[in-house]
């Protein structure tokens, strides 16, 4: 291969881009410029000496501010952790570092990942690179903006109810929410532990795939992380027909959906059908209850996870006027948390409190099971579901900040996937009035590879960041036929999960 650009030149071009544009966009809370240049120099030296280089050697990746990177600040977009320095690295971060990635900086986010617009950051909102008057979505808004403004190659985010996919859709990035347990959560600041997953945001499906494959896998430090043994699961397979089957859930094409988005998504589905996919209209009858269940389960876990921020061991500690320990707790938390964090702590405390637990939290957990069953039944008939990622394109800054419930509704098409523990990817699918549209593909647990394959077909149809290009019809049909054959080997049920400790 011919050397065309040194790692230092490449890194400098990204740093220049940040210097030029990030004053307006505010994707980054901190850029580690000097450290990044020093690392790039080492990469160039390695290449010059013809040493072995890693899969992502010298590739610039941005980290959402709730991921720990040893000896670096990590504030989770909150005042309570403004000066907190991580004492260890998250497993996903460490895995990327081990294959040579360089972390360029930490990106802005809604405080403790609670929000859908990045306006809940204690450090001010991030603006959408496509239109600075619009939000980026959230909570991984800084990561989505950094990626689409080409201020890094890719970024890590976290997704609890749509926090990777929704900002990816609003900014025009590819965003993957992996299967629950596919990526270790060790070193990710916990928001809602039964729903949180770390995943990549990138400009192409292939980039997202490379990063996902680098960070996935069992980790002894996260008891919920798993190893899925595909070979065991396929033993129970029964023959199914060759065509891939795409389900279109009618509950995702309802009146609250922008009609132009509906048209945009269905046009892509029609193209896939023309290329040989079988498209079926299906129903996920309990979809309407998902957001309600989510806004009980998630705050309940938030109220528990955020109890650790009490001013005792690290972070902000308001001790000046406090007479005793209890007053110190109360004042630290009053001074350190923003409005949305407080709102969800109170809501979650309510859902778990005596007298209300059965009527709210327990009912929400039962609803979660019913929603999961909807998907189990559906995936007996189809291999993929295609939906819009969001009901609207990006909205204006400040438009929804006064009404939390309206803000919560931005997650209506993304939360079910988290409740059911499924993988889903948002793919840029063209523009409406200059703003990106996200198409969401959902599949069975641990079938991320198939999301990537179908995602690659779709991104070549409406590719935002390059001139539109299409794979030749023959190639498209060949991929769709191959995918169909893959599904023919798959079991007609959820794959078994192998959790053997390593």
């Amino acid at each position, binding site marked *: 291969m011919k050397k065309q650009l040194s790692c230092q030149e490449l890194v400098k071009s990204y740093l220049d881009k940040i210097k030029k544009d990030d004053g307006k966009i505010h994707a980054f809370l901190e850029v580690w410029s000097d450290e990044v240049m020093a690392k790039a120099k080492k990469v160039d030296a390695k290449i010059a000496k013809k040493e072995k280089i890693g899969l992502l050697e010298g590739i610039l990746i941005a980290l959402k501010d709730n991921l720990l990177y040893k000896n670096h600040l990590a504030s989770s977009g909150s005042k309570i952790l403004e000066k907190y320095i991580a004492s260890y690295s998250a497993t996903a971060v460490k895995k990327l570092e081990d294959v040579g990635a360089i972390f360029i900086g930490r990106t802005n986010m809604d405080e403790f990942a609670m929000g859908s617009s990045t306006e809940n950051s204690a450090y001010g909102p991030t603006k959408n690179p496509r239109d600075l008057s619009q939000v980026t979505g959230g909570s991984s808004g800084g990561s989505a903006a950094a990626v689409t403004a080409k201020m890094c190659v890719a970024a890590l985010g976290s997704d609890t109810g749509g926090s990777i996919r929704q900002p990816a859709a609003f900014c025009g990035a590819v965003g993957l929410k992996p299967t629950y347990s596919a990526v270790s959560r060790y070193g990710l600041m916990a928001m809602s532990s039964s729903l949180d997953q770390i995943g990549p945001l990138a400009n192409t499906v292939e980039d997202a795939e490379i990063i996902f494959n680098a960070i996935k896998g069992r980790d002894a430090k996260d008891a919920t992380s798993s190893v899925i043994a595909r070979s065991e699961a396929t033993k129970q397979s029964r023959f199914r027909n060759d065509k891939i089957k795409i389900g279109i859930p009618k509950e995702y094409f309802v009146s609250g959906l922008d009609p132009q988005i509906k048209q945009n998504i269905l046009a892509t589905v029609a193209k896939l059908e023309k290329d040989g996919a079988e498209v079926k209209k299906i129903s996920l009858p309990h979809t309407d209850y998902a957001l309600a269940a989510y806004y009980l389960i998630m705050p309940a876990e938030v109220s528990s996870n955020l109890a650790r921020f009490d001013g005792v061991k690290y972070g902000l500690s308001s001790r000046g006027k406090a007479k005793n320990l209890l007053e110190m707790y109360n*004042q630290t938390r009053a001074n350190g948390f923003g409005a949305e964090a407080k709102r969800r702590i109170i809501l979650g405390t309510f859902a778990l409190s005596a007298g209300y637990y059965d009527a709210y939290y327990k009912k929400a957990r039962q609803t979660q099971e*019913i929603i999961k069953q909807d998907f189990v039944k559906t995936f007996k008939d189809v291999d993929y579901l295609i939906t819009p990622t969001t009901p609207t394109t990006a909205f204006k800054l400040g438009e929804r900040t006064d009404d939390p419930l309206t803000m919560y509704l931005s997650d209506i098409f993304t939360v079910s996937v988290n409740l059911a523990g499924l993988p889903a990817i948002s793919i840029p699918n063209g523009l409406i009035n200059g703003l990106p549209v996200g198409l969401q593909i959902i599949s069975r647990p641990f079938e991320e590879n198939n999301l990537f394959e179908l995602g690659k077909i779709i991104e070549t149809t409406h590719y935002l960041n390059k001139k539109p290009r299409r794979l030749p019809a023959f190639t498209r049909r060949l991929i769709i036929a191959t995918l169909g054959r893959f599904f023919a080997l798959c079991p007609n049920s959820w794959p078994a999960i192998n959790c053997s*400790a390593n």
Partner: protein
Amino acid sequence: MSITIEQIDHLAHLARLELTPSEKKKYQKDISAILEYVKKIQKIHEKTTIAVIPAQAGIQSTRDDIVANCQTDEREAIIKAFPEKEGNLNKVKAVFD
């Protein structure tokens, strides 16, 4: 359902969170509206009952209970983060006045 200021006070106490009078009023309004929305989940259970399965069942696993030492630099970083300390000890406020 709507929630009272007294309930907000009680929840804030349980959550160890000091709220200003204007915050209490705002959260009373917001949380009442959210509870009004989420109460729809009560409806689907009128027809069916379903057992609650532990969150993300089947993927929990345990490991052997082995004592492992913390790395020296990690230990130092943790101690350095204490808001107030005496030597290597973390100093906190008195539990009682």
